[in-house]
């Protein structure tokens, strides 16, 4: 019986393919695309201010609301934070990824892999809270600053506009540090994978043809690692754009996109505005990917 079924299926590879693809396709279409579409539809409704009810009528009113200065500022703030976090992650991840891909022994590489991915095994919220202890007014950083008599410098830094605040744990700098910490593994692994795929002979060929290590890095290694950097930055950029936990815990009253969405759909029940807000990161990411493609990030794939 089972044998005959196997034979039946073996002779119909297309049927097997269809059977295998059906569940993920259903998932993708219904759950993934479906929910995105629902959101898109919702963003064209609006909330009636008197009744507090969502009015299911097509309108661009909600989008118009997005463009008031306060909301534009939220987009600008979140996007600059995402850019800063992404750039910092690249700067920190590249040397480590390079070391892992080119120089580390097999044992060292395993160890570093574990070290990089281990934090992902514990709850993200717990790890974020532990940073509260590090950054708090009486936290590790302030304690250390006092120890080496740099508390003046720290206080001066905190008094600066935009980046400063009452303490590191209530400032844009705090948000930035925690974001870089939690998203760094998502940058290291793709860069490392991309670098690993660069054959050693390419680097030798470059140096053979007269290129100094710096020239080789610029003309061969960096362009070939670029797809990995882009892949990593898609993670860090989009995750930062949508996150609401870190800004809630470390921020002051200034809103970020994720926090705004949470407030509008949770507290005030303004689902259309929340949905419209969410379209923001999607549009920003689409622009980002188009630019990346223009720069040739996907040519070497």
């Amino acid at each position, binding site marked *: 019986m089972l044998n005959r079924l196997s034979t039946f299926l073996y002779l119909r590879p297309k049927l097997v393919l269809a059977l295998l693809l059906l569940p993920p396709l259903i998932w993708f279409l219904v759950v993934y695309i479906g929910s995105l579409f629902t959101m898109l539809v919702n963003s064209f409704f609006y909330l009636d201010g008197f009744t507090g009810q969502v009015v299911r009528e097509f309108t661009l009113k909600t989008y118009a609301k997005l463009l008031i200065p306060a909301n534009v500022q939220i987009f600008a703030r979140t996007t600059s934070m995402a850019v800063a976090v992404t750039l910092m992650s690249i700067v920190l991840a590249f040397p480590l990824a390079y070391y892992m891909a080119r120089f580390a022994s097999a044992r060292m590489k395993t160890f570093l892999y574990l070290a990089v991915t281990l934090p992902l095994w514990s709850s993200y919220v717990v790890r974020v809270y532990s940073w509260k202890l590090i950054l708090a007014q009486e936290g590790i950083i302030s304690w250390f600053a006092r120890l080496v008599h740099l508390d003046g410098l720290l206080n001066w830094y905190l008094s600066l506009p935009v980046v400063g605040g009452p303490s590191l744990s209530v400032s844009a700098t705090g948000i930035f540090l925690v974001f870089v910490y939690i998203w760094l593994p998502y940058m290291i692994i793709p860069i490392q994978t991309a670098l690993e795929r660069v*054959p050693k*002979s*390419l680097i*030798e*060929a*470059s*140096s*053979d*043809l*007269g*290129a*100094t290590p710096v*020239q080789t890095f610029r*003309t*061969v290694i960096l*362009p*070939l690692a670029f797809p990995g950097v882009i892949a990593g930055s898609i993670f860090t950029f989009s995750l930062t754009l949508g996150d609401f936990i870190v800004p809630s815990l470390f921020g002051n009253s200034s809103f970020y996109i994720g926090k705004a969405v949470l407030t509008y759909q949770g507290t005030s029940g303004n689902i259309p505005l929340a949905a419209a807000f969410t379209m923001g990161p999607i549009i920003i990411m689409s622009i980002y990917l188009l630019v990346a493609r223009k720069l*040739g990030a996907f*040519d*070497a794939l």
Partner: protein
Amino acid sequence: MSDNTAIEFRDVSRVFSVKHENQSGEVRAVDNVSLQIKDGEFFSLLGPSGSGKTTSLRMIAGFDRPTSGQILLYGQNVSSLPPYARDVNTVFQDYALFPHMTVGENVAYGLMIKKVARAEREKRMDEMLDLVQLPGFAGRKPLQLSGGQRQRVALARALINHPKVLLLDEPLGALDLKLRQQMQVELKSIQQRVGITFIFVTHDQEEALTMSDRIAVFNQGKIEQVGTPAEIYEHPQTPFVAGFVGVSNLVTGPVAKRITNSDRTFSIRPEKIHLAASSAEIDGDMYAADGRVRDVIYLGLYTRYLVELDGGGDLVVVEQNLKTTSMDVMKVKSQNVRLFWKKEHARYVGG
């Protein structure tokens, strides 16, 4: 040392320390090698894998450094110079073309690094593509090329800087037989045209014999023999060379004594042996041995016979099929035969 020496090895050794399952030791990849390669020569480093030929090449390029000894490039000690400071270029076994650049950018890479002006760069790039017979390929990407075409691009890229010495690391290994033979002829003619010293690493003895002015035969980190293809083939100095270059019968001990009245080991090439009826009269300037044909392999151009000698041991004999057909040669199977060859064709080899 004469003025026209391109590359000289002075007592060069390269020792790798290896760690394997708690055992550590060292491998003498290149073991006290001294060698001189003349200006303008097509010189082959021939040997089996692990014989030290590739390590020697990598030390000339600068990817690896000698543990001891010196490497001289036109009289200058380059042993500790990085690859980018040596006037030597390499054609890699896997071609190592930059996948994110076009063929033209690959070829002009060396000039781009040297900051040669664009117009000059493109002129020389076109010349190089003409030289390797790929005109009009500048705009393509390496991934769109066939193996043979990539090979040519790699060659053009390595030649554009007019290096003093061109190193080729088994560049034809990945090509099929027809293309390989065609490239052998072409490489040789390109070398004669550009007049640059070529150092060619290969494990294929036929390739080395076809192309080289001189050959160094490597075995276990040492050079067994250096000579012209004819010297290497006709006068192998060691049993290893006799066995590795071409097919050779090595005859030792009592079997050798029965034939030559001396127990010195000698080698005899299969094509030098004649096959005759067991009753044939043999001249005095010949050695003779009797045996029985165990196997006959018809190979079109020639036939290979495996003859079991009466006193023990086998000899391989090759005869061209000048007049014979496959039907004729098969009749010899299991027959008793007499083998003979000119005494001077038996080469005494060391050991």
